[in-house]
Structures are given as C-alpha cells and as structure tokens.
C-alpha cells in the first residue's frame, strides 16, 4: 500500500504529525535522562554530530569510499546479471548453459558466502565488491530472463511477417518488451545491493560508512551510529526514486493504459 498523497505529491500534514511527535518524545526522553546516551543519542545530538562529521570531512570521506564500492559492485553485477539474462533468454542453448548454475547460486544464502570470500579474496575491497555484485546480479538476471521469455509470442509473429532480422527483433521487440520486468529487477537489486553493502562493510573495513559506524560502536558514540544509519537511508531512498524516474521515462508508452 502506498501512503495517501496529495495531488502535489507531498504527504498530507496529518501524516507528518506522528513521526514528529515520536521525535519529540525521543528528545524529551533523552533530556530527562530516561534514554541514556550510551544506548541512543538525542535527536539534537545526532543533528549536531552529523553537521560536525560533514564539516570535519569524516563523513564525506567515508561516503566516497562506500560509494566507490557501490558503483563498482553495482556496475559489475548489473552487467553480469543483464548479460547472462540475455544469453539465457535469447536461446535454448544459452538457457541450458546459464540458467542451472544461476539457480543453484540462488539457493545459496548470499551472506553465507562471506567466509569463503574472505578466504578467496582477503579482507580488502574485493570481497565487498564481489558480494555486492552477486547480490545485484541475481534479481536482475531472474527478472530480465523472465521478462524476455514473457514477451508476447504474438508480437514475435508480427516481427516474422514484417520480416525483421534477428538483431531488429531483439532491439525492437524483445528488449523493450522485457524492460518493465528488468526495472522491477533493478529495484530489487538496489534493495539487496544496499543490504549487501552494509553487511560487507562489517568485514574488517578500514574505511567507509561501515567503518565509521564500527568505530563509533567501540567508543559508544550512538550519535555517530545513527548518523551513519541515516546516510544509508538517504542513499537507499535516493536510488529508489532514481529508478522510479527511470521507470516513468522508459515506460511512457504505458501511461495511456494507466491514466
């Protein structure tokens, strides 16, 4: 279910009341000592610390390291996931070659692979990027493959009577037909991708957001931990709305159907 929205796209004021009340209660509990700082810092402290971390350069530096991991892992995963889906989707031979191993990989719990990855790739950047890449690749593969196979066979007949060449068939019918499902996969990928980043950054990170949070834990700096979590939140929301924007632009042809 989507929250009720006004025509201008903003949630109505009523929906903002309870979150604001919660934050106020949280602040109050901290001020009167009900909520000790070692457990959870006050909202005001979180805000101040956030500002300090930005100004001192700690947060931007950590963010840059984490973003680099995301970009690397995401790009590798997207290329692999979509590429393999094309191979499997466009031919029976490709399907027999590619699909079974991927279905097996899918059955393996992603985060259960971490010990192996540490043995194989050490504790530097590689295991983190690989974990992220696999997390991103799987949903993209599954959805793109299903999308390609789900393209209406009747449109394939149209392509045949219009004498489209195979490359044209793929470009004009198969890929655009698979795009809606691919975008669903992209959304799932980003969800898993952020999760994989957070988990991967707990592996002996010497830099990045995860490192910042781990460091803060040792010094009982709950304010820094909350700032780190908020940054993860914002990043997740940002990429989600990016995908939504992409969907709106790429799937305009559906608008006639929806509106």
């Amino acid at each position, binding site marked *: 279910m989507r929250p009720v929205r006004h025509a201008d796209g903003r949630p109505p004021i009523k929906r903002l009341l309870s979150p604001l009340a919660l934050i106020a209660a949280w602040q109050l509990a901290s001020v009167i000592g009900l909520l000790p700082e070692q457990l959870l810092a006050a909202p005001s402290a979180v805000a101040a610390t956030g500002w300090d971390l930005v100004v001192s350069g700690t947060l931007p530096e950590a963010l840059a390291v984490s973003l680099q991991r995301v970009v690397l892992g995401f790009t590798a995963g997207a290329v692999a996931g979509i590429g393999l889906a094309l191979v499997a989707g466009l031919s029976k031979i490709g399907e027999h070659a590619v699909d079974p191993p991927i279905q097996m990989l899918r059955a393996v719990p992603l985060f259960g692979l971490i010990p192996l990855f540490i043995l194989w790739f050490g504790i530097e950047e590689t295991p983190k990027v690989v974990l992220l890449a696999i997390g991103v690749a799987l949903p993209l593969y599954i959805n793109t493959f299903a999308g390609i196979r789900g393209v209406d066979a*009747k449109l394939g*007949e*149209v392509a045949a*009577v*219009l004498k489209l060449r195979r490359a044209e068939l793929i470009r004009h019918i198969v890929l*655009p037909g698979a795009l809606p499902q691919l975008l669903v996969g992209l959304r799932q990928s980003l969800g898993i991708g952020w999760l994989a980043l957070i988990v991967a950054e707990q592996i002996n990170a010497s830099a990045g957001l995860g490192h910042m949070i781990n460091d803060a834990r040792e010094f009982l700096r709950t304010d820094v931990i909350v700032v780190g979590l908020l940054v993860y939140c914002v990043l997740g929301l940002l990429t989600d709305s990016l995908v939504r924007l992409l969907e709106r632009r790429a799937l*305009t*042809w*559906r608008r*006639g159907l929806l509106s």
Partner: protein
Amino acid sequence: MAARTAELTEHVAEVRGLARELGGRQVLAGVDLAIRRGEFVALLGRSGSGKSTLLRAMAGLDNDVEGKIEISGTAAIAFQEPRLIPWKRVLANIGLGLRGDVPLERARAALAEVGLDERADDWPLTLSGGEAQRVSLARALVREPALLLLDEPFSALDALTRISVHNLVLDLWVRHRPGVLLVTHDVDEALLLADRVLVLDDGRIVHETVVDLDRPRDRLDLTAPRASILDRLGVISEEPA
C-alpha cells in the same frame, strides 16, 4: 511439408491440399484455393472453422502444416487483433522493418491513407479499437504486398465506422491492387466487397459464389447469393431466395 516458392504465375496465392491438426482435431483437411492477381476474395466460416489457421499458414507463420502453399511475391497480414507494438509510436509501428527508400515518409503516407495522420506520434494504447485496426491495415499495406491477408479487420468497428472502413479497404484495394483474402463472419460484408466468396467448413472449402456485380453494390442485389450462402452455412434464411 509446405513448400513456399515465389514463382510468377497468374495467381498470387495457390493452396493445395492444406491440412493442419490442432489439439487432436483436424482443423484443416485439404483446403484448395487460388487467388488471382488483384482479386478480392472473401472467406466465410463459422467461428472455430479454421479461418485464422488458414491465414496464418498462408502468411508463413505455421511450419507444421501439410500441403502446398505457393505465394508469388510478398504477403502481408493484418491480424484478427491489431497487434501493434505497444512501445512503438503509431508511425514507428507502420515503418517497422520497412526497407528501401524513405521508409518513414512511406509510413506517413500509409497512415494518411487510413485517415490517421494526426495520430502519428501517439502511443498505440491510446488508440480506439477501430483506430488500432486501421493502423494495422496501414502497416500491412505500406509493404505493397502482392497478397493482402485480412483476418476480420472490421470486427472491432461499430456499424457506422464499419461502412467507412469498407470503403477505405475498397479504395486501397483499387489503388494498390493486391490480391486480397478477407476473413469475415459477415455474409453481407463479404458480398459487398468481394469478387468471390468462399465458405470454409469441416476443414474444406465447401462453397464458392462469384459476385459479378459492379461496385459500389446495392444490398438489394445481394439477396439471392446471400440466401444460398446462408443455406451453405446451415442458417435458415428468413428472406425468400
């Protein structure tokens, strides 16, 4: 095995002994038919009698038919549902796969011929059923086929639009002179448009009426052939023959 060769004969399409089994049922059991260059043939038959199956085979979409199909030149088909590519704008749908000079201009001209030039940049999902069928017609025509296969292209049209699209198809036929095989349920429609009306039943062509009348035709002149065809279709005609 169906043989598809493109040799020049006086026929644009020749079908002999065409048989097709579907779901354990012999849907086509030896269909023979021939269409001359520029001839307008209508094909009648009950729902489920295999009309679409026959057209699909003639369009080269069915590799599991037995018998002989010879098409000289290109065949184009307008399917029973318009089957426009939803993510291609109207004009791009018509121009898709079009080779040769200025494909987009030819597509635009075809769109103008079916009276929809102002919808060139719209998405297919915004078209009405009848508009979509006209676009599908334009997409078949723009290929200037020697044989035009039309699978109930008027089924989604209201009675009024139907008349204007009848005239449109006749117009286009006169201008481009393809051989036409028009599938329809409507006996009157067949008699108004075609040079020859065939009836498909039990997997065979069981009846043929030659309509040797000038166009445009008057419905009143069609009473006699209508009665005999309805009789063939197993319908008791309420009008005197």
